[in-house]
């Protein structure tokens, strides 16, 4: 899944666009949903959700199958959480678990918020490479040592994930991962073998950086596209219209 998201983020139609354009759309949508008062939440949630889905699937052309797969897992968690919210525990006269009075009023706001903000999060994740987001965060005031560190972690994740995949495949070939104890032992060996290898790798990286006269700042190439004021203005207008429509539509109970 992690590879599929990164591939989508680098291969969609909006991949070359400046991250600010996409952040205005998706983070703006997210802010509208989170800030919407309860009475206007359904209209705001549905409006933002539709805008985010159309932007991601129709305009940026994120693969639909990937998008639906990403929505499915949190939706499963949402159902479990909603079931917990729908019941009420009353211990005033002995322990009694029953359907909560007015359960629907309790469960619909988080459901609307989750589905709408999830559309924004998945839209951002599948259209914008993490490296672009980190570079953008660096430009808007997040301390450089943190964005540099996050960028190095991001790059190391891919190397580490590959080592783990190979280690697990090698162990399976040696009949590892058999039963509960066998799986625990196999996983323990994978993690314990991985860490010294990563330590050795960090020492090699350290040597390589020192050999290149490392002075404390890492410079990576970024995509050269500048933010388009026109596209940002259109995005702002669409979001403003969505928020206005939500404010004018009949209120929820």
């Amino acid at each position, binding site marked *: 899944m992690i590879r599929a998201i990164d591939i989508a983020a680098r291969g969609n139609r909006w991949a070359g666009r400046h991250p600010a354009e996409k952040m205005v759309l998706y983070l703006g949508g997210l802010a509208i949903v989170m800030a919407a008062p309860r009475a206007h939440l359904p209209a705001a949630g549905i409006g933002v959700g539709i805008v985010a889905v159309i932007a991601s699937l129709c305009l940026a052309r994120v693969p639909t199958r990937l998008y639906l797969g990403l929505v499915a*897992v949190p939706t499963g968690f949402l159902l479990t959480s909603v079931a*917990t919210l729908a019941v009420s*525990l009353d211990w005033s006269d002995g322990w009694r678990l029953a359907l909560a009075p007015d359960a629907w009023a309790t469960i619909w706001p988080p459901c609307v918020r989750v589905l709408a903000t999830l559309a924004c999060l998945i839209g*951002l994740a599948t259209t914008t490479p993490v490296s672009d987001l980190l570079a953008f965060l660096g430009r808007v005031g997040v301390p450089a040592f943190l964005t540099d560190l996050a960028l190095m972690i991001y790059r*190391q*994740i891919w190397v580490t994930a590959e080592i783990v995949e190979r280690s697990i495949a090698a162990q399976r070939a040696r009949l590892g991962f058999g039963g509960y104890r066998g799986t625990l032992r196999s996983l323990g060996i994978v993690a314990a073998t991985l860490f*010294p290898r990563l330590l050795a790798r*960090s020492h090699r990286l350290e040597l390589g950086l020192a050999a290149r006269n490392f002075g*404390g700042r890492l410079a990576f190439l970024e995509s050269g596209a500048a933010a388009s004021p026109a596209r940002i203005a259109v995005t702002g207008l669409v979001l403003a219209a969505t928020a206005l429509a939500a404010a004018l539509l009949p209120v929820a109970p």
Partner: protein
Amino acid sequence: MHIMEGFLPVQHSIGWGLASAPFLVHGANRIRKILREQPEARPMLAVSGAFLFVLSALKLPSVTGSCSHPTGAGLGTVLFGPSVVAVLSAIVLLFQSLLLAHGGLTTLGANIFSMGIAGPLIAYAVFKGAKALGAGIGIGVFLAAFFADLGTYVVTSLQLALAFPDPASGIAGAATKFLGVFAITQVPLAITEALLTVVVVNLLLQRGVNKDASLQTLSRSAL
């Protein structure tokens, strides 16, 4: 388990973000100090963050037959110390939301508090307490990882209970409901993660990883 995107009302999202901020600032200052004094520690921090990310993505078998993912709080704290783990966890949680759609941006503060702050602090206190009481490394690591995993879920339950109090029994009733759901699934997983952490730490000690100079820089020899 992470609280999913959008699940918490906005006041709670902001509140947990503010609650996490001082710990993150403290951890970031510590990392800044380490990097200022030893710029060569940067690769070590980077591979440590990647290790925590990949560790949290490993599928862990449960004795109940299902599977889950380790929090990594126990192992991370034993290896690197709680202040460094708080910042590394924040970065890992941000990546989990952007690379896996697990957790979310609006719930980042709450998830950092439970998984990156409460879990590691519990692990650190339990590990130090067990050592002070004369327990061996294995028992200390087991208890630290077990209580860190369980503590993470207890804090998550309390966060959910504060956001969604039960109409009849209030926050206490809601906490009981959420803890009841997690206790069934999480206690076996916490035991499994604790056993896995002991296996990993034992193997690391056999290989002398605790004597690694750059690891000592980060962890101040938690082991």
